[in-house]
């Protein structure tokens, strides 16, 4: 009951936040801009959806982790959690709710941007190119979702253990960039099913990071 309630509240809070509104506009806007610039040099060889996919996978995870870290540290400092923690609820409900709220919001933002990219491609180019590009985009998006999952759980962990917003954001930017290496691991280790490998790794790392976050949050003295 409390998990469901806190999750809906967090989801409402995040999708209505200015950051999310900006994200829903910024994702496709940056993609269109980059596509426009690149088309000047490549004569439109790269599709809009490919550019969108690249943008979402590059900044989606980073945005998700920063959003979570800043939100948790800020609420912790403002003592927002005091009023939750003195009620008969489990502490981990707060973290899980935050994790899924941001994960869903960023994924939906990415999906929206990607849909716009595919629509643009459909309108601008012929169906044949879309047929060639689409399977790759779907694979890329599945990998991106795994990366967003890892980034969100990493954001939660840093939010719980970091003493200040500045320190938290520095850690996220410094360590977060290495998360982008994960999609390259199947190439390095010559793994055939790259999508399956990244998804499996993504789920495992996300679960481990969330368990660590919950452990740290449960031990925290407020």
């Amino acid at each position, binding site marked *: 009951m409390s998990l469901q309630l806190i999750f809906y*509240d967090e989801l409402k809070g995040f999708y209505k936040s200015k950051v999310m509104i900006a994200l829903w506009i910024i994702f496709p806007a940056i993609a269109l801009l980059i596509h426009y610039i690149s088309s000047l040099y490549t004569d439109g060889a790269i599709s809009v959806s490919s550019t969108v996919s690249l943008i979402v996978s590059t900044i989606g995870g980073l945005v998700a982790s920063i959003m979570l870290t800043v939100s948790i540290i800020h*609420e912790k400092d403002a003592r927002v959690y005091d009023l939750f923690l003195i009620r008969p609820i*489990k502490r981990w409900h707060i973290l899980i709710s935050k994790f899924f709220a941001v994960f869903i919001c960023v994924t939906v933002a990415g999906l929206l941007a990607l849909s716009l990219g595919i629509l643009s491609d459909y309108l601008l180019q012929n169906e044949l190119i879309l047929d060639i590009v689409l399977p790759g985009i779907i694979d890329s998006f599945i990998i991106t979702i795994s990366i967003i999952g890892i980034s969100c759980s990493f954001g939660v962990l840093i939010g719980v253990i970091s003493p200040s917003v500045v320190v938290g954001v520095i850690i996220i930017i410094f360590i977060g960039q290495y998360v982008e290496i994960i999609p390259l691991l199947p190439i390095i280790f010559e793994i055939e099913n790259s999508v399956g490998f990244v998804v499996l790794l993504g789920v495992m790392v996300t679960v481990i990071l969330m368990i660590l976050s919950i452990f740290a949050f449960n031990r925290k003295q407020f």
Partner: protein
Amino acid sequence: MEKQIRCTKCSKITSVTGNPGDEIIVTCPSCGAKGKIKFEGEKEFNPSDKLVIFKNVSKKYKDVLAVNNASFEIKKGEIFGYIGPNGAGKTTTIKMMVGLLNKTSGELYINGYQMPDEKEKAHKFIGYLPQQVAFQQWRTLNHALTTFGKLSGMEKNSIQPRIDELLTILNLKEYKFRKVGKLSGGTIQKAGIVQALMHNPDLLILDEPLNGLDPESRYQVKQILRDLSKKGTTVFFSSHILSDVQDVATKICIIDWGKIIKIGTMDQLKYEFSKQNQIELVLAKKADIFHEIKKIEGVESIIERSPQKYLINVGKNVDADEITNTIIKTLMKNKCRIRSISPTSPSLDEVYQYYLRRGVKN
């Protein structure tokens, strides 16, 4: 409940008594072997009238002993005023009570539940107002209060009427649908009081509840606390505004440097203070009595406040009632007409300062 157990070493049968949920270490009366026994079943609610029990509770932050061996009990329906200077350990005590901080040592029970191990059960009975009230900025006041009502286990249909009732009492009705981020400090403080009262808790724990409130709101909140106490709600509140404590509290506890200095009703605190201090004497007619009164054993000095009004300082170990009797006899012998004689009634401020000074000396 009673349980018969057999010693695994010498096979002697012993009977042990305990409550459901208790875990007791039993020593065999015959061979001295020790063993653990658990009584089955859920722990029962505290049947006594004590809602809060502190037994030698201490809290240490690295090198600082924030609460030092605190022991006190709060009965149902009491308004327990917890006073002390800044940094005395008031907020640390409160945070241990509500389970936000773990104690370093000692035992702490809320409605029979041990804190912090059984805090989830204890939280059902608690309403808490932190010193620094904060809600998520993006929520409207109504949204925040509804969420807290639901999380406290309130019935869905009873939440909105309760919010309306409390917002009306505290003059917050116009802010109901405003975003929390747009509310003033005083309004947020009042909203904090509303969320603490929402689910009609048995124990209300308020950390400096009157901070930042205007005089009218202070009066309203004090009135609410008195009404709740009459209905059986136990109130624990900390403050360093002594007049507020004096107005509301039925029992007062003074804390300084993490140590409980004194606990008692206002009258008890005043009595001990006045007993060891001054006697006020008013005569019908001015008289030269200095010499005679000074001769009385235990009298340390006498001050003439006005022509007929005197303040007699007596020794700390002297029985004030006895010395008052002796003074009356001396005055009668000297044919002085007494209008009034009584130990002075100190204000809480004087009592507080007295106990703090005494606490520091000790």
